[in-house]
């Protein structure tokens, strides 16, 4: 057993878990945050993406023990208690989802992409960086639209905030 102590969506969590427990299992079963989904079991589909210390991570590629001492943000905590994060709002507005199973991972990956590229984000970059997230329903068109729209709105908001 491993003692795991970390912050999840701003709250301290301490648990004893089996050494081999994956972060995604820990979040879903021990913390009861089921927004991160298990789609492929093999770290390819991206349905389980969360942020660990601010970076997008497939939570099935990481042991819970490895995340000890880290700050983890899941889809449930993305809006920080507000209504919807701008990326969440954009996915809804642009119909960037159908069955919704991949959506939490898509949004967590997208938020990280926007954060890293800021104003320089273009469609080709979104498509290239989204390759680790699989969607079987939408054909990605509306997902890409949502991400680009969110990026431009967040940039605008950042500018307003800076003024």
């Amino acid at each position, binding site marked *: 057993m491993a003692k795991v102590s970390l912050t999840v969506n701003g709250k301290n969590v301490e648990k004893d878990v089996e050494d081999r427990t994956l972060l995604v299992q820990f979040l*879903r079963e021990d913390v*009861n*945050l*089921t*927004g*991160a*989904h*298990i*789609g*492929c*079991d*093999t770290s*390819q*589909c991206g*349905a389980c993406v969360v942020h660990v210390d601010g970076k997008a991570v497939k939570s099935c590629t990481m042991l819970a023990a490895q995340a000890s001492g880290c700050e983890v943000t*899941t*889809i*449930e905590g993305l*809006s920080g208690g507000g209504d*919807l994060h701008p990326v*969440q*709002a954009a*996915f*809804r*507005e642009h*119909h960037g*989802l*159908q*069955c*919704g*199973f*991949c*959506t*939490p991972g898509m*949004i967590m990956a997208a938020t990280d992409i926007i954060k890293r590229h800021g104003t320089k984000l273009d*469609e080709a970059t*979104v*498509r*290239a960086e*989204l*390759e680790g*997230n*699989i*969607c*079987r*329903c*939408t*054909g*990605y*068109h*509306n*997902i*890409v639209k949502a991400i680009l729209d969110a990026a431009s709105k967040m940039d605008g908001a950042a500018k307003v905030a800076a003024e």
Partner: protein
Amino acid sequence: MNKHMQTSSIERSTVGKGIAHDSAKKHVAGQAIYIDDMAELPGTLHAALVVSTIAHGIIKSIDAADALAMQGVHLFLTAKDIPGHNDIAPIMSGEPLFADKKIEHLGQPIGVIAADNIELAVKAAHAVKVEYEVLEPVLDVETAHERKEYVLPPQELIQGDVDAALKDAAHVFEGRLEIGGQDHFYLETQIAYTVPGEDDDMLVYSSTQHPTEVQHHVAHVLGNLANSVDVKVRRMGGGFGGKESQATIIASAAALVSHKTRKPVKLRLKRALDMTATGKRHDMVSKWRVGVDANGKILGMYVEYLARAGYSADLTGPVITRAITHTDNAYFVPNARIVGHACKTNTVSNTAFRGFGGPQGVITSEAIIDQIARELNLAPNDVRAINYYAPDNGEVTPYGQQVEQNQLVPVTEALLASADWDRRRTEIDRHNATNPVIRKGLAMMPVKFGISFNLPSLNQAGALVHVYQDGSVHLNHGGTEMGQGLFMKVAQVVAEVFQIDVDRVKITETQTGKVPNTSATAASTGSDLNGMAAFNAASAIKSRMLGVAAKHFQTDETDVTFKDNQVHAKGQSIPFSELAKLSWAHRVSLSEAGYYATPKIHWDAKTLKGRPFFYFTYGAAVAEVAIDTMTGESRCLRADILQDCGESLNPAIDLGQIEGAFVQGMGWLTCEELWWDKAGRLRTIGPSTYKIPGSRDVPPEFNVSLLNNASNIEETIFRSKAVGEPPLMLAISVYLALKDAIGSNKDRNFDLKTPATPENILSSLSGSANR
């Protein structure tokens, strides 16, 4: 009383609006609950399937001692532990839940094991030792066909006299096409959660497109009556046909463990097992002889399909029927003989997949057109145009249905113009003349798709609508939500009837205890059937409320109107909620079970003749591709689509369906390859080896439109048309564009297998795939 209410005569307030998916806010917030997200009840066990590791043989012994010795492993059940019937065949019989003696495919369930958690259950499943007597497997359709090994008798459609037509034809061409299968790759793998109740009751949460079938099979397996099983489905993480019959395996196995242990049981398949143990789209080989006149007009054709049924029938019969009834696609074939063989192989039993045989029929049709054009050196679109069903002149399909509201010419002409076909054709030809390495291709194709289940009895639906005294509405119907937006579309229908805001309509999980005897949410019919059943239920309640309102306003019912959450008459208004309360006070029922059965359809399954489809949808696509002739790699550079959705119930949802279906179809035809080894083991069982389209694999320029002014001439729900499956076949334009690129330096027709992987494109380029 309802039949007088023309669905198109109501003023539109909610229907036709691009409202977001019913769960959009929950999905983006991670709050939508799939079965695996449900809080587990105390004592929940986790189950795992034990499956065969050989493709064909006899079970000699099963030893679960080591597995059961593991701490936390509770029990192991096999065929002999089934109290009812060991049969989960959706149509025929003799398709066991658990193999008893005979093993007929690798991955066939032999038993189920239950443990404290899923990881332990899976580990224990692997520890069960099964000894086999190994038999030689049959792994391809040609061998099965030679040996006459079928799961069903052949189906044959005969129209006119093909032999005479071919004899008189100026040209006769023969061809053969290998059409690949496809894994559904729904992101949420198969799952069920079963909770035993009082008496022998069983509550089943199943990720299924067909709750009624799950209900019946669980009851059948447990040896109980259907009324002891209640199946609930709030949402699926994708279905695509893969959760039509296959979900019964998972639900029945879980229910069996619940039945024995009296404990809640969850059974979720891991991805690799899901891909191994559950059925897929039928791969087929189609072969044809077509006779044409000097201009390329089709005089007659003989087409034969060899479909990989797998080890059992499952839904193969109706899949073949739909392939046969879509072999004409958009083209008038005066003389035809079309035969389909359900070849028995020692592979997993294939099943429904979006299009349901239609894609295999349509690609065969388009390959024939393409061959005619290449052999006669004609432009493929000219060959198409002279073969289109003539506009509304009574031409009938080979199965005897008149082609009505024919939109082929308006759709294809509008699309060719908006896609700038002429200019791009010239540019691409110029490009190819000077670029030997990167070749480009351009192709257009139409799709005519028949809407209704081929079997008339399946075309019925029920809905349950309640209005509460505060004016809020409870909506339930037999359709299931798998991401396609059905729940919102039906809620829009109900909101439209009452003229209330759609958020006053509570969408509730599909449940066999509320609406019984439902058909699968399949064949693109979800909103046609359930929308109309809900419309009928809501309209019946509304007509009773009208009587109450007329009394209240002391006027005739015809003076009363519902609008903007209010009820109006004689210049006065009361809120809809107040009328609801008044209705209750007057002892008027505010609840109704609605029902709908599709009119006009009939079908003779022996001769394959009749009017199987209530109506047709029409669509067309233009695709542009580039191939690297050195590596065989390809890209779709641009796609343009025009699709007939009638008067769309929700254009945003319909556009999403079209985009998603097209990309899924592209996957089927270009990158998704199912590969079995010589022992019959599927080797493509995860996203690392089975490649579905990713964000970079879709056309960067993607123009999708709905046909305007296309009100359905048939009285469908608000004159809309179905959308789920038809656009998948539009991806055949990508296949034809690849042929166009490869054919840019070939004089005659040539073969291109699907999926058109780099390997298969290279084979075509080098000529090794030629006849």
